């Protein structure tokens, strides 16, 4: 059985363009792609806990913001280079996510979402309030970067890792277990799946990349303040990207990120309210008319193969051998 030509085309085209941009493109193109990569990485991370495990929440930006501040403080006070700061920021995501996951994931769906939502707001308030550390509303200014290309490639690498990791997960039994948790956690637990361990694992993994990217983004902007670190815009766009692309799929976040980055680029700078309102409409529209996203629609029309390919292929091979 051949792999899907359309899927390869999409990923291939994206990869080629992503590699070409810093070499051939203008500074503007690099900026645009960095913004796209931020959405992409946040989306793939959210996809793990929200799309696969089914624990949708509105607090992804918590990890991004914490990572941004951890990284910024390291770079600002101790001159830590941006790439090391990003690594430490990523680790801070893990440190935050382990106890948080253990506590929060005991809550059922809506409570979990509310809990995470509240967390993001509280963290933002802390960032604003503890201004002796964070400079509060004024924000922290960093030395602007002269050459964005190393940062760009690091981000691209993180994005690629998330995409490949999602692909491997999708085609693995661990992925099936996550989906089982999403579909019916009680039944999964009754049949021996270790739900707590798996979902906390997914939650922790979903925190690493956003935290690291938060730090990278702060380095890229040369600036951080509470509204930037905990931007509801990021939260909303991330969710919209995954929802529009297709929750719990490999290509969904990629497709969604590309589409919404364009919308973002067109509207966000000049008409931020209109942009956010449109994102809201997109989320609403997707929920009502295409809850499985663009990739879901493509699967229904058989432009993309439905479900998890590896198992079908292995199953065929086993059947033939029998």
């Amino acid at each position, binding site marked *: 059985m051949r792999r899907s030509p359309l899927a390869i085309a999409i990923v291939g085209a994206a990869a080629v363009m992503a590699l070409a941009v810093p070499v051939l493109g203008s500074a503007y193109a690099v900026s645009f792609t960095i913004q796209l990569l931020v959405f992409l990485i946040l989306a793939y991370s959210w996809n793990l806990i929200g799309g696969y495990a089914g624990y949708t929440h509105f607090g992804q930006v918590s990890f991004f913001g914490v990572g941004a501040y951890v990284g910024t403080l390291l770079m600002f006070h101790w001159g830590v280079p941006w790439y090391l700061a990003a690594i430490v920021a990523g680790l801070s995501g893990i440190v935050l996510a382990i106890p948080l996951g253990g506590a929060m994931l005991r809550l059922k769906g809506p409570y979990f979402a509310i809990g995470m939502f509240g967390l993001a707001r509280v963290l933002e308030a802390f960032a604003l309030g503890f201004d002796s550390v964070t400079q509060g509303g004024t924000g922290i200014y960093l030395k602007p970067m002269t050459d964005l290309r190393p940062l760009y490639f690091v981000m691209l690498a993180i994005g690629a890792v998330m995409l490949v990791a999602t692909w491997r997960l999708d085609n693995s039994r661990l992925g099936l277990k996550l989906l089982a948790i999403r579909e019916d956690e009680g*039944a999964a637990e009754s*049949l021996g799946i270790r739900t707590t361990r798996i979902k906390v694992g997914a939650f922790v993994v979903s925190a690493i990349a956003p935290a690291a990217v938060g730090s990278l983004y702060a380095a890229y902007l040369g600036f951080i303040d509470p509204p930037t670190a905990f931007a509801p815009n990021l939260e909303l766009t991330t969710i919209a990207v995954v929802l529009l692309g297709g929750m719990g799929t490999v290509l969904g976040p990629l497709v969604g990120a590309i589409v919404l980055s364009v919308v973002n680029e067109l509207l966000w700078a000049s008409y931020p309210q209109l942009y956010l309102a449109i994102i809201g409409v997109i989320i609403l529209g997707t929920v009502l008319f295409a809850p499985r996203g663009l990739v879901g629609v493509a699967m229904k029309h058989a432009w993309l193969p439905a479900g998890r390919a590896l198992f079908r292929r292995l199953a065929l091979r086993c059947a033939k051998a029998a």
Partner: protein
Amino acid sequence: MAEPILRVEGISKRFAGRVALSAVSMQVARATITGVIGPNGSGKSTLFNIIAGTLRPDEGRVFVDSREITGASAAEICSRGVARTFQISRLFAEMTVLENLVAVATSKDDRAAIAQAQELLEFLEIGAIAGKWGAELSYGQRKLVEIARALMLDPKILLLDEPFAGINPRLQNRIVEHLKSLCDKGITVFFIDHEMRIVLAECDLVYVLAEGCVVAHGDTESVRQDPKVLDAYF
């Protein structure tokens, strides 16, 4: 009997003042088919859920293979070799039948898990629907997939929650055949149901519950003729 594989001792359970089970005791022998019947409200489901670990009893103890499992969680009981199906099927809707099975497989190797799943589907004669989505299946197909999924756990005891409800008689008979061959392989089958015809024909041991108490038990002949059973039902 030799050491029973499943032993229930003096189980009692109350819900908000109403007695659901009262000092229920049972013994299930290895590699047999045991059925529990009783009219609505007799406490069958409550007993089933206590054995499966989704409910805790107020009093009494449950033993699997001589080890106590009273109050253990469903997952722990699962690890002791007990697998269950659900009365209202709880298949994973957005996954294929094959994926439903492979998701719960315990073997380390992917290929082995898939092979096991395929074998079980063949055994239950539903190999053809391996690629169908959980949400697309018919009622009868769901019941069979539920059984297959439980069997993926290589259980010692298979707990079936009303496996025959709403199924046409031909399929019921086929399911009984499959259950019998499972017993031949050493698996114990324990189920609750309403279908007296099947229970009184095919079980090795029958327990009759009424209003939370065991009113009769024994082989199918003695239960069939027990006046207390007729009393309970009619």
